């Protein structure tokens, strides 16, 4: 155990360039990290594509009104490498719950983070809030 501690201590010392995870574009320009949203619904379409994947979700409110939501996430390469399979893991007709953050334009568009499947399994479809937008502290802040 001590050996592990030493290893991780050294690793931490090396990581001075600890920039927030950088995707290929800014989270914060498009999405509001202060507006988390959790929705359960039925998948209507999955766009498994570069540079970002999307899925669409029919969500029924308490009055029975159905709204279709669009969720953005990782490109296929990233999804493949973290346990997703195209046309298998997520497909039209599946009921899922998704946690993410709403778009700044107020439309039914959001950035996805975690998807929970019917069997309780959870996978990440997108990166954390703040990815690629500078996070909380600017590079030149004292």
């Amino acid at each position, binding site marked *: 155990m001590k050996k592990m501690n030493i290893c991780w201590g050294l*690793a931490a*010392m090396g*990581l001075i360039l600890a920039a927030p*995870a950088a*995707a290929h574009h800014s989270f914060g*320009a498009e999405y509001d990290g202060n507006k988390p949203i959790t929705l359960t619904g039925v998948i209507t379409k999955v766009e498994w594509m570069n540079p970002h994947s999307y899925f669409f979700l029919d969500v029924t409110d308490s009055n029975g009104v159905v709204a279709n939501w669009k969720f953005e996430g990782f490109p296929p390469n990233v999804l493949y490498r973290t346990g997703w399979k195209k046309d298998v893991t997520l497909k039209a007709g599946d009921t899922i719950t998704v946690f993410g953050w709403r778009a700044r334009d107020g439309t039914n568009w959001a950035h996805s983070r975690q998807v929970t499947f019917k069997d309780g399994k959870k996978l990440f479809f997108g990166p954390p809030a703040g990815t690629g937008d500078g996070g909380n502290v*600017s590079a030149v802040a004292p």
Partner: protein
Amino acid sequence: MKKLSGLLLALAAAGVTLAQETPAIPRTADGKPDMTGVWQGGSNRVGTWEEANGDGGLGGGPAPATAGRAPVQRPAREPAPYQDWAKVKVQESFSRRGIDDPMARCLMGGIPRSTTVGLFPMQIVQTPTQVIMLYEMFHAFRVIPMNAKHPDDMEPSYMGDSVAHWEGDTLVVDVTGFNDRTWIGATGTFHTEAMHVTERYTRVNYNRINYDVTVEDPKVLTKPWIMHNSIMLRTGTRLREYECAENNSDIQHYEQLLKDESVFRRK
């Protein structure tokens, strides 16, 4: 053999238990550390891609305090050493939440950012005369000759021109000839065509390359900007195609947002 036993005894006496066996650092015929393989920059986690990233820590954020891992303590952060006028420009990009990121428009990330971005793997192919670096992100590549001079007909470019040499077991790569259209790392960290990057790759164990970078740009920085990062071996990972320009719908979204900056600008 006696020496080895002595060392093991000394380690045992010091209360150090040997972690699970990892192979020795591979070496090429000329005795240099061989860094050939698929790697992930911007991470300090050991394991396959899925093991190191499946919990959502993509990009090398702080390692979660899961079993068997000590909490990571970050060293004190230092501000990037920009000149006062340039700080204002970096801050402005931060205030605009990185909407001006050249990479959002599918432009290559430059150096060191292509390495540190973390979300996509890179591959190193090492030969005695050249080191080839391939980046899945936007299909960037570098063909780096050993013990060569920069050519005298360089055009300013996104990835710059690289030449390398060995200093002991460290591969030192000298990069110049950049254009001014990439960011060094974090949001808004711009530079000029005068930027000069020195990268030092040291394979410190089987799983890890220490990636130490010095960025010089006297036109915008007050002193060299020194960064320390790591690049982790990702056995079993292969580079795939990552075409960015097709279906980049975020850009249309940006165009809408830019009509009213107050929608996204930091207060």
